[in-house]
């Protein structure tokens, strides 16, 4: 018999109690997995907004806390385009509207000549040319079962789908695109765009150009990659902080649950621990056994938590508002975080009962009834 087998069998002594403890920790793990997947999905969505097609960086209004509320004068697009090292620039207006029973659909206001820079490929039909025409993203087209010739309603105005586009970005492909002028008119934002995408000449120094733009236009901020998103959007930071807080809460609640379970187990086995000490077991071995039980319980919780987390996330994506916004992404670091949390819960939760077990006097433990 191996030592690990003994630890495993000890856990199985009180199956119901162990199962409830595992379930308790699993819920915490599942929350971490689900939040992590949503967070990753949101990051990818944000990346989809920040980096479009061939753009090397994007420009938004400075001093804002939500990228969607960025308001940049449309004339800036031409000014930026004139800068040395800049090959092309495209101003895009973003809007979010309920379309075809989907409560939150990203809507792009774009100029058709900017399609190459934005990486928009029309895979069926043609581009819009009239005011009440639009393009539908490939993913949206499939999900809503709408294609060329069908109509969509945005703010009580009917639009005819003239083509289906694909960008390769899941987030963009879940939306619709119409003429910049029309969207400005719908949003009462004539002369303004949300973001300017910039493509640089080959060999141009992105860092220098970004610095130059921020110096010349204090009302603008440049974003080269997702790590700079916090300049214009605090949403991901807030969600990340919430995830961390929930992880800590899971450690505390799970840790208390595990401590209680293992403590009870140690009390119930006081006499048995006395016998093990009597037959020569060292305090270190007793500590290892009790801590091992606690950690093993938490490792089981990872398996159950993973399953619950994935199922829970999939259930969440059944909600149209979530499905329209993001596609949950399971990344290695999420699983790693869940593993670290579970392991920490096992370690922290088992430490006190294990310490108590080693402090039992063998002689007194043998007299315990």
């Amino acid at each position, binding site marked *: *018999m*191996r*030592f690990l087998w*003994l630890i495993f*069998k*000890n856990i*199985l*002594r009180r199956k119901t109690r162990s199962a409830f403890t595992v379930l308790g920790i699993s819920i915490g793990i599942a929350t971490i997995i689900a939040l992590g997947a949503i967070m990753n999905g949101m990051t990818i969505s944000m990346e989809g907004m920040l980096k479009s097609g061939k753009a090397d960086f994007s420009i938004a209004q400075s001093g804002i806390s939500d990228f969607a509320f960025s308001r940049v004068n449309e004339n800036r697009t031409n000014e930026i385009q004139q800068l040395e090292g800049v090959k092309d620039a495209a101003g895009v207006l973003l809007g979010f509207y309920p379309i075809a029973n989907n409560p939150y659909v990203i809507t792009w206001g774009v100029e058709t000549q900017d399609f190459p820079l934005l990486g928009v490929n029309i895979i069926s039909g043609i581009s819009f040319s009239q005011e009440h025409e639009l393009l539908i993203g490939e993913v949206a087209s499939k999900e809503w079962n709408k294609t060329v010739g069908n109509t969509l309603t945005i703010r009580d105005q009917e639009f005819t789908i003239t083509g289906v586009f694909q960008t390769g970005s899941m987030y963009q492909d879940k939306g619709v695109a119409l003429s910049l002028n029309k969207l400005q008119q719908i949003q009462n934002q004539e002369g303004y765009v949300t973001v300017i995408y910039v493509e640089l000449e080959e060999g141009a120094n992105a860092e220098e150009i970004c610095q130059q733009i921020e110096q010349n236009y204090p009302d603008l901020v440049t974003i080269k990659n997702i790590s700079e998103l916090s300049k214009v959007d605090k949403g991901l930071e807030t969600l990340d902080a919430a995830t961390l807080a929930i992880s800590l809460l899971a450690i505390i609640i799970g840790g208390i649950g595990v401590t209680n379970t293992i403590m009870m187990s140690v009390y119930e086995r006081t*006499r*048995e621990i*006395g*016998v*093990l*000490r*009597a*037959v*020569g*077991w*060292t*305090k270190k*071995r007793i500590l290892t056994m009790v801590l091992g039980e606690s950690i093993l319980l938490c490792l089981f919780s990872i398996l159950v938590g993973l399953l619950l987390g994935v199922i829970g996330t999939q259930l969440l994506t059944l909600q149209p508002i979530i499905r329209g916004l993001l596609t949950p992404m399971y990344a290695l670091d999420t699983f790693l975080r869940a593993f670290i949390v579970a392991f920490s819960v096992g370690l922290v939760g088992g430490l006190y009962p294990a310490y108590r077990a080693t402090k039992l*006097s*063998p*002689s007194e433990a*043998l007299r315990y009834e």
Partner: protein
Amino acid sequence: MNKNKIINVKNLVKTFEHGQVKALNSVNLEVSEEEFIAIMGPSGCGKSTLLHILGGLERPTSGEVMVDSVDLCQMKNLDTFRAKKVGFVFQLHNLIPVLTAQENVQMPMFELKLSSKERNERAEKLLRLVGLEDRIDFVPTKLSGGQRQKVAIARALANDPKILLVDEPTGNLDSASGHEIIQLFQRLNKDGRTIVLVTHDKEIAEHASIIYYMKDGQILEK
């Protein structure tokens, strides 16, 4: 032939509750190798405390205790002593309920550097020795009281100690099973083990070669 003294106790005193309770009061005891002694006395006379001190479960308050050339008053780490020098058998078998007989016997072996296979083989051999070769994979609840006590004896022999310290081994058994257990101890004694048996049952004690009587923490007579 004169045998070596394997246990030598001089002026042993053990107090509890900061000296308010005197469990052992100047106890002297000598046990030769391969001897089978019984210590008799009423409950609370200190016989179990004496057994616990001889087995390194308690430290003496004062006096000298030498067991198999180990000075228990000086030795800092008593775990190794317990693992290698003595084997305990208690009134209640104290087997781990979720483990089989063979697994229970292996418990003391974890402190030795043995492979899993070696532990299995040794446990099987010991269960054969106590006559339980057909109960190897049985959990304690599937064994009779006498069989459980035999598993506990096999466990005490796991690390091949010279001395067996036995505390009321038949207290929970019917007379037939009790008799069988005592016969097993006699056999183990003949094979060269030193046995110190603590009991309040005169009939059981009479199977030992020497009987000591204890009262109020003192050994009165031989």
